């Protein structure tokens, strides 16, 4: 029997052979090998990768889309949706918790300001997407009461001076370019609404996130430095760090894949564990 035609063999790639074809292919090494080659060719075609267009192609398409009025530049909204918004909220909340813990540690000597909710019990996220609260107790003796203590500083304009928008360290607060408005406990809901508003501009939001991270880490460093100050009680600092870890854990539950929140958490855990080790070592060497 003559060999099968190439077209007939091509059909056998994915269709069953007729009886006579099956008999032939079984006995003919040439045709059997040809079918295998055709199958390999078909597999190779199916595995072909995607192809990249010319890098200049987007420019041409964009121009055409704009010419037809199909696209235009809009304010970027990604910062205000989903994970990004949660991250900003987490950054603000965690920082505020850091401020709260710092207040407890230093007795509210005026270096840090802190947002306290209406119950006076804890700091919380300012936009309703709270990631945790921390009991900081009543204001320490000698500090102003919750009613008249400046709580959070918010700029009128959405300019990138988040240092003035957040409870912050003195050095960061000092960076504010203009006198900020001061909100008290009674004004907190309005202030919170302002901070969480979609009216925040993209750049201000991004800058705020960075500043919040910097400020949070600065707060942690303050705890470290406090350990060296005469008369400081490391157990108080440990309690504050425990609260921070709890807050970052809560934030992680909301945004487990968020690198920034993970960074906060790891930083807080690292500091707390380091302090625990120091305390354990100190107990061993108490004599």
């Amino acid at each position: 029997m003559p060999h099968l035609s190439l077209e007939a063999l091509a059909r056998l790639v994915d269709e069953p052979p007729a009886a006579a074809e099956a008999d032939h292919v079984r006995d003919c090494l040439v045709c059997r090998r040809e079918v295998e080659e055709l199958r390999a060719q078909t597999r190779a075609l199916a595995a072909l990768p995607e192809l990249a267009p010319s890098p200049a192609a987007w420019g041409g398409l964009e121009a055409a889309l704009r010419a037809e009025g199909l696209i235009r530049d809009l304010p970027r909204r990604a910062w205000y949706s989903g994970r990004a918004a949660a991250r900003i909220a987490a950054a603000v909340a965690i920082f505020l918790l850091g401020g709260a813990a710092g207040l407890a540690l230093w007795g509210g000597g005026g270096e840090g300001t802190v947002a306290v909710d209406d119950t006076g019990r804890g700091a919380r996220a300012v936009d309703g997407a709270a990631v945790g609260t921390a009991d900081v107790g009543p204001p320490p003796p000698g500090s102003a009461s919750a009613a008249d203590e400046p709580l959070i500083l918010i700029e009128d304009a959405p300019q990138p001076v988040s240092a003035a928008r957040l409870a912050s360290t003195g050095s960061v607060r000092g960076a504010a370019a203009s006198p900020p408005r001061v909100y008290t406990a009674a004004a907190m809901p309005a202030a919170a609404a302002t901070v969480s508003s979609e009216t925040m501009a993209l750049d201000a939001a991004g800058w705020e996130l960075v500043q919040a991270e910097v400020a949070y880490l600065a707060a942690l460093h303050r705890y470290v430095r406090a350990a060296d100050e005469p008369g400081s009680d490391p157990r108080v600092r440990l309690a504050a760090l425990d609260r921070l870890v709890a807050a970052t854990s809560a934030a992680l539950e909301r945004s487990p894949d968020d690198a920034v929140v993970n960074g906060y958490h790891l930083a807080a855990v690292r500091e707390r564990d380091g302090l625990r080790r120091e305390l354990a070592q100190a107990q061993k060497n108490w004599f």
Partner: protein
Amino acid sequence: MEDSELVRQARDGDAGAVRVLYQRHSQRVYAVVRRMAGDDTLAEDWAQEAWLRAIRALPAFRGDSQFSTWLHRIAVNSALHGRRSRERKAGRETMMDDGLAARPATGDALLRLRLERAMDRLPEGMRRVLVLHDVEGFTHEEIGELLGINPGTCKSQLFKARAKMRGLLSPAVAEVEEVRTCHT
């Protein structure tokens, strides 16, 4: 951000959202139109036309299927309805040969390039069926619907295309085997 959200923003005319969608899906769109065109320049025109059609049609996209599936179908249709320019193709073949010669290629990469080149050399009808069936995975029924032919004709074209590809690739396969042998 999910495609669905980007689509929603793109529907409002957000250039940034359209750009992200383009970045995500441009390679798939380009691949199918390029292989059906058999020609880079023509493919770029068709790919742009596919995107223009898609963005124009976004208000009608209801999300019943994935955006990528919907877009792919538009790309195929754009390629099928695109008009072929023989002058461009003649110019392009020279450019492509030059491009291929300039690239270093391992055995597998060489085989891919040979496959692409062989497809370019197929008659248009065969190439379309081969690309849609063997590369893109459409069924004969779907292809028949797209091309306005019956499934039997589609099968016949496919088997001819495979056979012709085999003939075009035989020397190349031997060459690739030789390259592989040299590397091992």
